[in-house]
């Protein structure tokens, strides 16, 4: 009995072992060694920013030709060049990008239209008449983007709006997908001036619901010397390819919804440069005139509801000062001189 048992177990073990050994030769699948090397070069965060489920899947896709070598957004150009090396492809350097929340309507400046008592996610709240915020385009700040971020780069900041930690953000785009309002944009890291509003409502409506919403007054468009700012469909937007980060639009914006995120010293420097240009020479004067007229039109458009008839540049100045409460310090120094 004991012998039989031992013989049976031994025999079975031997037979199955041999079978598996044989099968491993017979059914051997040659794994692409490049897949492993690509995987080793990837960050391993499995963020899904590439559009594939995880780094391993992306590595497979790159090797089989379905994925691009520079598809890893989290790794940026460093990883892209490594992957390109493995695959024997030349990879062009990518510009580093970062997520930008295009809404500045914190609870202090854009209130609630109703009390929301439901599932605490932006996606759920949006389904209910676009959410409890007075501005239907505004950030609901329930943190869908924060939860989507695998890199701890987002955080519901002190003002009650998600804040992006640019040092941590790898521009994987998870938050972009998570935001039901489409408020997050992946902008080049070197672009420092952003329009922090996504409201396509007419200026009249925006002015009612939010203190920092874009009213499409076009002052930014006129202030921009390189044609990077455009107002389209009741909303300003910046073409980052053209923008030189001069901050002129941010300074002119009466609603302060265009933000210049450079250090204070740099902002001061380009402000002085603008003033210097405006003061010196004929070209400077012409630009100042343009600026003044531009303001006239802009103010008329934006402050039309207040009955401000701005015909001359000086009048425009007055209308602006009267119409916009956010404008205390922004009467430009060159305009009064002209008037």
């Amino acid at each position, binding site marked *: *009995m004991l012998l*039989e*048992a031992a013989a*049976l*177990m031994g025999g*079975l*073990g031997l037979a*199955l*072992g041999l*079978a*598996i050994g044989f*099968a*491993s030769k*017979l*059914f*051997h*699948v040659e794994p692409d060694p490049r897949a492993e090397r690509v995987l080793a070069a990837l960050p391993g965060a499995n963020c899904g920013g590439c559009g594939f489920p995880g780094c391993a899947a992306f590595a497979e896709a790159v090797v089989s030709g379905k994925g691009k070598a520079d598809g890893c957004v989290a790794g940026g150009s460093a990883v892209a060049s490594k992957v390109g090396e493995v695959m024997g492809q030349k990879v062009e350097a990518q510009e580093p990008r970062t997520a930008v929340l295009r809404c500045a309507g914190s609870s202090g400046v854009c209130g609630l239209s109703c009390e929301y008592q439901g*599932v605490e996610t932006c996606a*759920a709240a949006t389904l209910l008449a676009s959410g409890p915020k007075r501005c239907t385009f505004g950030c609901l700040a329930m943190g869908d983007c924060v939860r989507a971020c695998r890199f701890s780069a987002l955080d519901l900041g002190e003002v009650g709006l998600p804040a992006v930690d640019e040092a941590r953000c790898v521009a994987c785009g998870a938050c972009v997908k998570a935001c039901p309002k489409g408020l997050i944009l992946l902008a080049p890291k070197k672009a420092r001036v952003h329009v922090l509003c996504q409201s396509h409502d007419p200026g009249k409506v925006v002015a009612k619901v939010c203190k920092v919403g874009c009213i499409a007054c076009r002052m930014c468009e006129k202030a921009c010397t390189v044609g990077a700012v455009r107002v389209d469909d009741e909303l300003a937007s910046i073409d980052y390819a053209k923008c030189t980060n001069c901050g002129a639009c941010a300074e002119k914006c009466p609603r302060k919804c265009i933000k210049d995120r450079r250090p204070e010293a740099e902002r001061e420097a380009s402000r002085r440069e603008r003033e210097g240009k405006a003061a010196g020479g004929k070209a400077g004067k012409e630009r100042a005139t343009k600026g003044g007229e531009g303001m006239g039109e802009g103010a008329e458009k934006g402050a039309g509801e207040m009955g401000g008839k701005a015909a001359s540049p000086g009048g425009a100045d007055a209308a602006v000062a009267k119409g916009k409460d956010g404008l205390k310090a922004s009467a430009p120094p060159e305009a009064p001189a002209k008037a």
Partner: protein
Amino acid sequence: VIDLAGLFVLFFTAAVLNNFVFYRFLGMCAYLGLSKSIDTSVGMGLAVTFVMVIANVVTWFIQWYLLAPMGLQFLELMTFILVIAAVVQLIEMYMKKHVRRMFDAFGIYLPLITTNCTILGITLLNVIAQYDLVQSVVFALGAGAGYTLALLLLAGIRERLELADVPECLQGVPISLITTGLLALAFSGFTGMV
């Protein structure tokens, strides 16, 4: 002649009355682990069914052509573990080479369930009940269907629970266990049907 009615009863009993999760409380680990979404629960359920059938057929031959004639039934447990593990491994190798799509669908679940307690459990129960080969296959299919049903039920409920206002101390596994208990209670209502 095959007794179709008898086989149907066998299938139904294995799937619903004596459900492997709700009646026998087997395979709880995989049941709780893979029931977070309906997608994974379907994959896991199919993989379990597949391996159950394979295991039942293989061990049926081992039992009635090797162990029983030699009078070595006390070796059931050991031989079954050995044989099932090896056979699933072999099948996995074969699929990887020749049925790549099936491997991609099952691949991640197969190593999880070789000699999982549901698999071992069904082969031992199969021996105790002394089913013939056809009955063994039907028994395995029924048990697999029952396991898939249990996974799907819990996955559906858990997807809803994600949005429900569950007290903090019960969130996650505790509420899933409570749900499982309630489901088992509901399933006990089938007792005595056959």
